[in-house]
């Protein structure tokens, strides 16, 4: 068990930032921590990394209590804080060397060179951090989290504020890291969870509202399926409405959007209909329920009990 959280709560004054949450993360999992702003994602991460203490409850990293073995926990964690604070007046290598010293990394030079290579900083490693673009600063942030080869990585919004290409690169990097390390990352972007996480924990108002493997999370809410279909020749709408399991039909002429009950084998029915009518199908596309929809359903107040 890499991370174990039991009844963890945090009060800021009278405001409950997180309210007795429980979860556990197995070794080697990549878990996405999702939720709207102010849901308690960063608070949970700050507690796990021993930056702030919890009000009540327990948390363990690699079996070590974060309160009792704070220093040891910090030694085993790699942490990229939100907004990625860095010493802007230091050089990239100088900074990494400083962090490596803090961790007492053996074979420091070699390890720094490795981290620079993994994070794709090779071209920029002679610059001052202040001169780097946001994407490269983020890589420096990741490099410092990796320098001591931690078994658990906690990344708070690792891709926020990056351009789309950089997002893809950083995601790929995290995915590669996830092959051997436990990764807990927070994000608002659901596509990110879809792209890199094995599992998503959705948190809202300080409580966990869903905790499922990414694949299950999507299918769990599917009660119907939506299909876009384009016919070769125009077809009457009434015929489509008569298909088994159909719930609604929109569109006219050759383009239609159908919704049908899940498992109603609507695609097959459409093909046989087209054959029967001497028509043909130019394209057919089943829409995936996106995590966005799942997320919306789970985190809007109407559905929050």
């Amino acid at each position: 068990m890499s991370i174990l959280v039991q009844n963890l709560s945090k009060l800021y004054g009278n405001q409950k930032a997180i309210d007795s949450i429980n979860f556990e993360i197995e070794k080697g999992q990549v878990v996405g921590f999702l939720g709207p702003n102010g849901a308690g994602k960063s608070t949970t991460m700050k507690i796990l990394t021993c930056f702030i203490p919890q009000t009540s409850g327990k948390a363990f990293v690699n079996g070590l209590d974060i309160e009792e073995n704070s220093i040891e926990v910090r030694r085993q964690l790699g942490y990229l804080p939100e907004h990625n604070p860095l010493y802007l007046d230091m050089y990239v290598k100088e900074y990494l060397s400083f962090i490596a010293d803090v961790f007492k990394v053996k074979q420091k030079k070699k390890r720094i060179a490795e981290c620079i290579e993994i994070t794709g900083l090779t071209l920029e490693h002679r610059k001052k951090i202040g001169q780097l673009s946001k994407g490269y600063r983020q890589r420096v942030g990741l490099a410092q989290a990796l320098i001591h080869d931690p078994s658990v990585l906690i990344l708070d919004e690792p891709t926020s504020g990056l351009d789309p290409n950089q997002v893809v690169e950083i995601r790929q990097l995290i995915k590669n890291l996830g092959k051997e390390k436990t990764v807990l990352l927070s994000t608002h972007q659901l596509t990110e969870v879809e792209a890199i996480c094995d599992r998503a924990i959705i948190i809202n108002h300080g409580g966990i509202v869903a905790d499922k493997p990414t694949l299950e999370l999507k299918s769990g809410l599917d009660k119907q399926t939506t299909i876009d279909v384009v016919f070769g020749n125009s077809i009457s709408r009434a015929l489509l409405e008569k298909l088994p399991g159909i719930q609604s039909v929109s569109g006219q002429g050759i383009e239609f959007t159908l919704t049908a009950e899940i498992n109603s084998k609507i695609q097959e029915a459409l093909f046989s209909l087209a054959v029967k009518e001497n028509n043909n199908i130019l394209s057919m596309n089943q829409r995936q329920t996106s995590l966005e929809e799942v997320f919306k359903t789970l985190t809007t107040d109407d559905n929050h009990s």
Partner: protein
Amino acid sequence: MITILKKEFRSFLSLLIAYVVMIVFLLITGLVAWVFSDTSILEGGYANMDIMFNTAPWIFIFLVSAITMRSFSEEKKVGTLETITTKPISDMSIILGKYFACLLLVLITLLPTLIYYYSVSQLANPIGNVDTGAVIGSYIGLVFLAAIYVAIGIFSSSLTDNQIVAFILSMFLCFFFYSAFDMLKNIDLLKGSQFGIDWFGIGYHYSNISFGRVDTRDIVYFISMICLFIFSTKAVFSSRKW
């Protein structure tokens, strides 16, 4: 601790703070001790360095405050405090690392003034006829004084994320502990108490030690003041966890 010290000291060098501090300090003490005719050792006719040791505490009030003001304020503002406190390093190591980096810079700034001592002793008649004991005492006093100032500065910096506030607060506290008690002594209300209130001030102990009389009571006072402010810093620094 050594890691933090190294990093802090490097940043003094790379941000030019170190050079500016040294130049300003040496320029002011140099002018006061050798050039300005009102105060110059050459004009004074005595082979001593009192003028430098009397001026230095005042220059240090703003120079030390300037050195220490960024130590915690900046890290708080930029957020790097989160980076560093989530590393396997204790709060005390961070504080001491920063403390000794600042103190080291002050000590290095003081080093060139040893030339003043050499010059004075060469100028004395007969050559070498200087009250060396008093000079050594004064240097010890000045080092302790700087050590307290640095502790005060670090403490002020830990209180706020605004460097200007830290700077002004640190100057005020340094001034207060250096000379305010001497001045309070003269208020009628406090006159005549057996132990003068000036005993609480740094100035009283500094002038004691400047005579070349290294008294344990003064040393204990200096060390207690340093500890007081270091532990206050620790309390403030750890208060994020309250």
